[in-house]
Structures are given as C-alpha cells and as structure tokens.
C-alpha cells in the first residue's frame, strides 16, 4: 500500500513537472521543475526526496522524463538556458540516471532528430556520457542484477545500440561526426570500460558478492562478431595477460568471461584473441581450459583455424598449438590435431585440389605439432606418422608444381629427423628460399618466447647494446691505423717499381685444339673418347653452325640427331646449355628439315622425358630467334668479328650526325629516335612447320610415352610451347589456321587435373586471342568463343591455382578487347553482315 502511494505520488509530481516544462512561459517554473527532477537522481544526503521515491523514479519515470526533455529541445526555455544552467540542471538528468535507459533514449533521439542545435546538444551530452565512464556503470549494473525482469528484448536492443554506436552516429551526423564516435576511438574506449567493469567484478568477488559476467561477455561477443575484435582485444588482451599472471580471481573472471561469450560469437572472439596474444602462454592464461568445456571453442581451435582457414600468421599457429600442448588435460587434443593434420597433409586429393598457400599452412601446422610432441607420444603415434609421411611424400613428389614438391621434401626431411627412424634420415636437394627456411626453423622450438616479465625497462638492454656497438666501432677505427702503422715496414721490400705486364693471356693451358670445320666437330661428337676434344667440339658447335650456313645445311639433321642423343659422359661444365645452343642454331639455320625431324621424333618411341622436353625447348627457342628481326643479329656478329672497324664507323657516323645537328635549326622537337629498321620476319614462312606436326599424335599412347596419361608434365610443356608458337606467329598469314587448330586442341584438356597443364592451356588461349586477327577470331570461331568465355569465367572464379585464375582473367580481358575492336571496326561489321 505504501509502495503504491509512493509511486502515485511520484507520478503526480513528475506529471506536474512535465506540464510546467511543456506549457509554462515562465522560466522560473521550468527551472523549478528541472530541479525537482534532478532531486530524484541526487543520491546525496541533502536530497529532498526519499530513497523509495528515488528508486521509483529511476524505475518507472526516468525514461519518460528524458523523452520529454528530448521532445522539448525545440522549446523556447531550452534555448534560453545559459551554459552554467545547462550543465547544472539539464545535463545531469542524462548523466546521473540509470545509464542503460539514458543510452537508449540518447541513441533513439540521435537517430530521429533532424540536424539542429538540439541535436548538437544531445550529441555533446552523449559525448560526455561516454567520457564520464557511464559505460562501465552500465556494464556493471547488468553484472549485479541477478535476473533482469524485462530481460531479453531490452538487453538485445541495448547490446545492438552499444555495439553499433559508431555506425548510428556516423549515419546520422556524417559530415560533423565527433572524433570520439569513430570506431578507432570508440572501441578501445569500450574495451577499457569493459576492463573497468571486470575490475569492479573482481573487487566484488573478493568481497563475496555474486556477479554475472553474461552481459559483458555478450557485449564482447557482439563487438567481435561485427569485426572489431582487433581494436577491442588489442586493448583488453595485454591488460588481461598482465592481470591473470598472478591473480587467481582475475583468472577466474577471464575464463568465465570467455565461457559466457555466446556460441555464435565464439569464433570471432577466439580468432581475434589468437591474433593479438603474443604467446601461447598468454593465451592459455586468458582462455584457461575453454577448449575442453566449450564444444564450439574446441571446433574452432582444433579444426577451423588449423585446417579450414589459412590466412593466419605462423605466430597464430604457434599460439594455438602451444596452447594445446601446455596443459596435461589439453595434450590429448594436440595428438588428435596431429592425427587430423597429418591426414590432411597426406591426402592426395588435397594435394591436387587445394591452393598451395593452404598446403604450406598445413605443413607448418604439421611440423609445429610434431615439434611439440614428447618422445613418448611420438612413439605412440609413430606408425600413424610414418604412414602419413610415406603417402604424403609420394603425392607431394608426384606433383608437377615445384613449390609443392619442395614442400614435400622439407616436411619429409623434418619429420624423418624428428621420428629418428633408426638413424635413417631423409635428405633431399632443394633450393633454399624464404619458405623452406621458415619451415625448417619451425622444427627448432622457438627461442624468441617473449620474456615472462614485460615490466622491466628495456632501456638498460639497449644501452648495453649501444655500448658494445661503440666499442666495436672504436676497435674498427683502431684497426686501420694499426694497419697503416705496419705498412711502411713492408714498403722497403716491395716490387712496386716493377710495373706488371698484362697477364690476362695466362689461362689454363688446353691440350687439344678446337675443331675448325663443322664436319670435324660432328666427327668428334659422334666418336671421340677424348673428353677434351668432345668439350671443344661442343663449345665450338654453335659458332661453327652459324658461321658456315651452307655446311650446316648439309649435315643439319644428322648433327641434330647426334646432339639430341648425346649424353654428358665427361661432365662438361655447361653441357646442357651448349648442347641446346647448338641445336637452336641448327634449327634456326635450316628450319624446315630440322623441325620436321624434331617434331617427328617428339612422338616416337624410346625417348626419355628429358629428351622430349629438350625438343620442345629447342623448338621454342629457335622460333623465338627466328621471329626477332634478323638485322640485329648480323650487326652484332659483325661487331664481334671486327670490333675496331665497327667502332670507328660508329664514331664517324656520330661525328657527322653531331655536325648536322649543330647546323640545323629546329622549330619543334619531334621524335629523335630513328625508326627501327625493317627486316623480314624469318619465322612467319616456317611457323606451320613448327606448329602443326606437334598437334598430330598427341592422343596415341605409346608404351613409353602417354601424353594424356601420366606424362602430364610434357603435356603442359607441349601446350605452353604451342602457345608460344602461336604468340610468335602474330601477323603471319597462317595465324588464323593455327589459332583455330590450337583452340580445338586445348579444348580436350581444359579440365585437366594438373595445374601446369591448365596453366599451359590458359597461356595458349591468351596467345590465341593476342595473335589471331580479330576478324578471323570472330567469324570463324564465334561458336567456340561463347563456350570458351563461360569456361574462362568459371576458371577465373573457382580454380584453386592463383596463376590459373589470373591467366583466365587476362584471357577474358583480351577477348573483350578483341570483341570491342571488332564491333568498332565498320569494315568488320559489313563483312560480318
């Protein structure tokens, strides 16, 4: 009954105040009303209202009061308030009442009001609301309330407003937004307010008061889910790390906080925390045994971060695995992780179909996990690991991508070394690069664990370093002087007054002489057992072929055959390069017979893959050479033969040129460069000989050569080479036929499982679009083009290989350019119509 009377009394009084606020013309009435309202919020002893009245006001009338005040923003009295009066009477009503209601009203008003002086006032109040730490009060108020009656919906709204405050204000105030409301300022503020609330909770717990962390956890989750985990946790994690180091209450609060994070937000909170935690130690102090109690957390930490995503830094992997390894209860999870990761690593389908970056990521995880195992655990897992190692190595080494092969080798080496297979160790030869070094370094436990106590000043350290550097410098300064001191002694006894002659002619003596005739050279290559002679012949072969074209044409095919079958019996240095150069020279000098020979041999029996690849390389290089303007080559050769004459000729020319320039007056500067001299394209007439024979037999599997089956490496090279021929044949009359044939050819293998083949196909398509006359392209191939287009779009989107994707995009762009050119060209249209 008494309660009812209090409530009605308060209601009456408040209604009276509202009336005077809304209707009174007299400012004193208004001020009285405001003071009355303020008195309900004043907790001080001199307050005129009773505690019950205040409680009632806060509970039922506060929101209404604020709404009325907001509604009266345009009223006359509001404008006539002085600054002092406002800060005494008006602002406190927003800043002292229950913060949740105040925030809701403020946000509601900000979203509804038009830009005006009133809105500015509200924004300032909001700013003061944030600055005066009301958010911490808000969070704290929810921690104490055991079961809030008006719960779910109100909470939800409040959370949404709280988390989205920067968005709401930005939408509304766009050009005049306050800096405090930007995400960069607001979220760190929110984080520190959360920390303040947590601090109060700790204090309360020590005093034996029960608190609920649900609301803080929900806020944290919500903010992280919206993608601000970096900003928020960047502030919270370091503080939590410090506080949880020694304080048990803080530890419990921190663990509880993470446990109370709603399930759908768990992932974003955990990944955010992983990224800002500087070590696994910190992470495990903050998160406790969360991974054991929370299913979602377990899934994220043991599966999603390790196997499904691959965007994180290595440090994150270290943190996760270190976290799993650092506690006895969590170690079974580490073993489980190692099992699943090793299966993922060894999976042949994954090796084929996942991007290389992900495979690198999985490899890192595998190595890290293996390095964290104890020897006993390793023994237990040994058979599993060995199986994984064998399967995985095989599928990695089968891959045609160099990176993946290297990955397999490095992981194989590291794992075999870790497992200690009766002293047997795998050892591969691969090129060291950034990636492999990082992988190898993962096996050695990280020494760079940040020191457990970050508090001590790092200055003494750096000073010591400075000092040592200084001493080092001084010693460096000293040493030259010492040297200069010792110098004069030796001066007495030097041979300095005897100037040496040119001794560049003093080279290793060679016992045999290089052959002077091409036939001698060939003879030596065929039959000689004298390593010296063979080496000289090989070295001389290219220049002999080029110098004497007629002699070369007589024996070109025979010599090509000899070179193709030649083995490096004497391990001549640079054997492959020399042999290739000689074959290229032969092909360039006598194109038709040699290409006929080589293209036939490419599909014949009894060649190794290496030889077939050699054939392709030689053909490609020869085509490149032929397609370059020949004039360059000749002048270069001439200048090589008679450097003196050509030099003098050039200087003579320059001299005359200079004189002419001096005598000439120029009104405007045109292009000073002389146009490139015209030269016949030597490739265009023979392009067909290079190209078509290679298309002939690709689908006839031989016993030793199955192009469409296991020899996909050669297939990839073949298609790439064909693409190159196509590219070089630009402007040649035969280009249209070549393009059509090439498109037909690659159509059959466009979905090949091997990425090098797909890359080759896309390269070939690119070169077709580049080299084929656009008219021919549109008219002859219009049907195929549509299909090609859809296929390219598909590849550009979905191919696991990054190179393939970018090549597909490239092709699409080229195709579009071709289309545009064709449509803009009126001639083309008329022909088409």
């Amino acid at each position, binding site marked *: 009954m008494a309660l009812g009377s209090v409530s009605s009394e308060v209601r009456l009084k408040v209604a009276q105040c509202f009336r005077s606020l809304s209707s009174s013309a007299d400012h004193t009435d208004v001020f009285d009303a405001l003071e009355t309202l303020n008195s309900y919020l004043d907790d001080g002893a001199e307050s005129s209202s009773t505690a019950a009245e205040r409680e009632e006001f806060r509970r039922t009338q506060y929101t209404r009061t604020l709404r009325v005040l907001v509604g009266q923003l345009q009223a006359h009295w509001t404008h006539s308030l002085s600054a002092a009066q406002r800060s005494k009477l008006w602002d406190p009503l927003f800043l002292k009442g229950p913060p949740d209601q105040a925030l809701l009203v403020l946000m509601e008003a900000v979203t509804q009001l038009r830009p005006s002086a009133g809105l500015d006032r509200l924004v300032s109040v909001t700013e003061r609301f944030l600055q005066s730490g009301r958010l911490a009060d808000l969070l704290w108020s929810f921690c104490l309330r055991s079961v809030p009656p008006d719960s779910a919906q109100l909470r939800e709204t409040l959370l949404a407003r709280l988390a989205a405050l920067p968005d709401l204000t930005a939408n509304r105030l766009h050009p005049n937004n306050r800096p405090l409301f930007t995400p960069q300022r607001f979220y760190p503020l929110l984080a520190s307010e959360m920390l303040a609330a947590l601090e109060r909770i700790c204090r309360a717990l020590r005093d034996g008061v029960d608190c609920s962390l649900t609301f803080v956890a929900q806020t944290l989750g919500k903010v992280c889910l919206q993608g601000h985990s970096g900003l928020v946790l960047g502030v919270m994690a370091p503080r939590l790390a410090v506080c949880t180091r020694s304080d048990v209450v803080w530890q419990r609060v921190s663990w509880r906080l993470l446990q109370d994070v709603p399930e759908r937000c768990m992932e974003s909170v955990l990944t955010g925390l992983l990224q800002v935690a500087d070590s696994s130690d910190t992470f495990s102090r903050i998160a406790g045994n969360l991974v054991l109690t929370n299913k979602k957390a377990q899934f994220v930490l043991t599966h999603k971060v390790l196997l499904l995503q691959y965007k994180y830094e290595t440090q994150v992997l270290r943190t996760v695995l270190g976290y799993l390894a650092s506690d006895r209860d969590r170690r079974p999870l580490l073993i489980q992780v190692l099992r699943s990761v090793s299966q993922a690593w060894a999976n042949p389908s994954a090796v084929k179909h996942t991007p290389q970056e992900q495979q690198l990521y999985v490899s890192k995880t595998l190595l890290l996990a293996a390095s964290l195992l104890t020897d006993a655990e390793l023994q237990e897992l040994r058979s599993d690991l060995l199986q994984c190692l064998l399967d995985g190595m095989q599928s990695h080494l089968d891959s045609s991508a160099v990176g993946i092969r290297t990955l397999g080798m490095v992981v194989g080496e590291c794992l075999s070394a870790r497992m200690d297979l009766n002293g047997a160790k795998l050892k591969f030869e691969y090129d060291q690069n950034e990636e492999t070094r990082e992988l190898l370094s993962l096996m050695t436990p990280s020494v760079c664990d940040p020191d457990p106590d970050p508090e001590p000043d790092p200055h003494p350290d750096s000073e010591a370093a400075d000092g040592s550097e200084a001493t080092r410098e001084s010693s460096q300064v000293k040493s030259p002087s010492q040297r200069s001191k010792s110098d004069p002694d030796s001066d007495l*006894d*030097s*041979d300095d*007054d*005897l*100037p*040496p*002659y*040119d*001794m560049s*002619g*003093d*080279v*290793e*003596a060679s016992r045999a002489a290089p052959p002077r005739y091409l036939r001698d050279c060939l003879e030596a290559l065929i039959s000689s057992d004298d390593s010296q002679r063979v080496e000289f012949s090989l070295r001389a072969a290219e220049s002999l072929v080029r110098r004497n074209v007629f002699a070369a044409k007589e024996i070109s095919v025979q010599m090509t055959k000899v070179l193709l079958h030649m083995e490096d019996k004497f391990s001549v240095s640079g054997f492959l390069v020399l042999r290739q150069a000689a074959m290229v020279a032969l092909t360039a000098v006598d194109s038709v017979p040699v290409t006929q020979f080589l293209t036939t041999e490419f599909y014949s029996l009894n060649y190794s893959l290496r030889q077939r690849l050699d054939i392709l390389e030689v053909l490609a290089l020869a085509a490149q050479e032929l397609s370059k303007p020949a004039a360059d080559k000749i002048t270069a050769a001439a200048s090589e033969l008679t450097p003196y004459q050509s030099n003098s000729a050039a200087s003579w020319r320059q001299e005359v040129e200079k004189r002419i320039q001096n005598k000439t007056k120029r009104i405007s500067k045109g292009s000073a460069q002389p146009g490139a001299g015209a030269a016949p394209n030597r490739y265009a007439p023979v392009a067909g000989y290079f190209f078509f024979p290679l298309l002939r037999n690709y689908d006839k599997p031989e016993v030793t050569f199955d192009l469409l089956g296991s020899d996909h490496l050669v297939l990839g090279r073949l298609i790439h080479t064909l693409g190159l021929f196509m590219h070089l044949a630009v402007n040649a009359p035969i280009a249209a036929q070549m393009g059509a044939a090439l498109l037909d050819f690659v159509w059959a293998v466009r979905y090949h499982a091997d990425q090098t083949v797909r890359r080759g196909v896309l390269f070939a398509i690119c070169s077709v679009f580049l080299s084929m006359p656009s008219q021919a392209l549109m008219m002859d191939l219009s049907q195929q083009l549509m299909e090609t287009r859809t296929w390219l779009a598909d590849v550009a989107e979905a191919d696991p290989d990054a190179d393939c994707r970018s090549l597909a995009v490239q092709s699409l762009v080229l195709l579009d350019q071709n289309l545009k050119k064709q449509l803009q060209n009126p001639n083309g249209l008329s022909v088409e119509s």
Partner: protein
Amino acid sequence: MSRPAPCPVYTLRGAGAPLNTLHFRCSGGDSPLLFSGSAKGAVHIWNLKSRRAERVLEGHGSNSVIWVSTLQTADTLISQGRDMRVCLWDLTEGRIEALDSVWTGSVGFCQCSVLETSPSSYLLAFAGPQTEEIKIIEMPSKNPVCTLTPDTKLGMVMCVQLWKPDSGLGPLLLAGYEDGSLLLWDVTQRSELSRVKAHPEPVMCLTFDPGRLRGVSGSCEKKLSSWMLDGQNHIQLQDCVTLVNPGISQLCVRSDGRLLASAGWDHRVRVFGWKKLQPLAVLHYHTDMALSVAFSDHQDPKQRLLAAGSKDQRISLWSIYNQNADTC
C-alpha cells in the same frame, strides 16, 4: 691499363733438338756468347752479335746434354751429359779442345753445380751412382772431397746447388730429392744441417740467392715454394706462389736480385719480382714445354737479356725490366 705482354727480341733456331740448358757468357772482352745444350748431345755456342751458332761441340756421343757452364777465372767450359760424364773444354784463343772428363755414374737428370773456391781450383757437386748419393770433388785435381748420403730414403737427387756463405763457413750445398724434401748440407762437416718437405712431388728445380739467403723450388704441381735460411742455417718455408698451369722445369734469379724467371711446362716463361714474388709478366712464344731459362751477365744492365730454351727446338731472347722501372 697494363702494358701488353712483351715479345721476344729475337729467337735462335737451328739447334735441331730440345734445348735442355742455357748459359750466358757476356762479360768477356769479345762478343757475348750463349751456350746451349741440346737433347741430341750437341753444345751450341751462339754469338749474340751475329745471332748465329759459331760452333757446335759434340762431346757426349748423341746423349742428351743436361747442363753447361763456364768458369769465371779460366776460359773453361763444363758440360754434363746423360752419358754419365762431365766434360771440360778449353776455350782460350778460340780453341775448342776437350781437356778432360769426369765419370759421374749417375743415370738421373740432376744437373751439377760448380763453385770456384780459388782462381786455380773449384768444387764440382754431382749426383753419384747410388740413389741418394751426392759427390763433391775438387777440380781440376779430381780429388774427392766428400760423399753426402742422407740417413733416410729420399729417392733420387733431383737438383743441387753449391755456395759459400759470407759468414766464412765452409761451402754449403742445397739439394732437392725425389720425395719433395729439401736438404741443406755442410760440405766440410759432411753433416745435414736442415731438412724440410717443400713439395709433395719431386723437386724439379731450385734456385738460391746467397745474398738474401732466400730460394725457391719448383715441382710438377701448380705452385712455387719459397723458403729462406735463418741464422742457424735452418730452412724456413715461406708462402707459396700459385701458378695457372702445373709443372716447372727451371728457375733462375737475375744477378741483381730483382727478377725471378721460371720455365714452365705450359710453354710459358713467367717473370716474378724476386722480393715479394709478385707475378710481373708471362712470356708466351714457345709452342712446347719451356725447358731452361737464364739471365745474361752483361756488364751494362741495359743490355741484359733473358733467354729461354724450349722443347720446340728454339731459344727466345727477351729484354725485360732493363731500364729502371721502365719499358723493355
């Protein structure tokens, strides 16, 4: 840019056989002479003014002549052949007469060494009939002075050099052996003073500069080994000079102690500064192994020559570093 490699001043052809050894005698009054010993057993006497062979001495049957030398005090030519004999020739007043011969008994290629102790007598050191044996006799009386045999097996004697130190001690002898060892003998005491292993392969040649107490030795490898004698007559190995091609057949230091020349198996003659063994020039003319090298003993430094004899049957003469630090 350094100067281009030098060319020979002139060449002497017509010996008709590889030239194993060369010796100048230019200090005499009349025209300067060059003696050469060929693989066919002939000793040619070349007149360096007319650049012709004045006379040919055939004293060793057709066995290869491996060493020729003259005496400063008497007009005597000494030649050593593979017929195990050392012959003495009288050259006075244009005569060429075989005076005497000494039987050495050595089947090896070790060249003798001669040291004039007084105007009328001189010492001759040569490899003896036994493997490691060196014999020293006093000439012209042919009185044996001593026989030096090391107490361990070192293989054949490859090269010897006699000299008399300034300190007034008796004559000393340096000898290189087949296993690469270098021994210093005291002739009067008949004792071994010092021993080092200078090369892993046989010592092919050595030369010693008594003024600076330094020497170098060559072998069939790619380096020259330099060494020096300390106050206690111990041989101290010093740093090596690495060559481009292996094999050295002869070494020679110019009398003024500034240049060292080496005859290489790679057809080239190399010239080094003697003080620091800094490479100075590579003389490339011959088309076969260079077998011998010698500096002339002209009174006038500007006329000094370097001669190289080769397996290609030619002798090339070079004028190099004759003016003070100037061109040839």
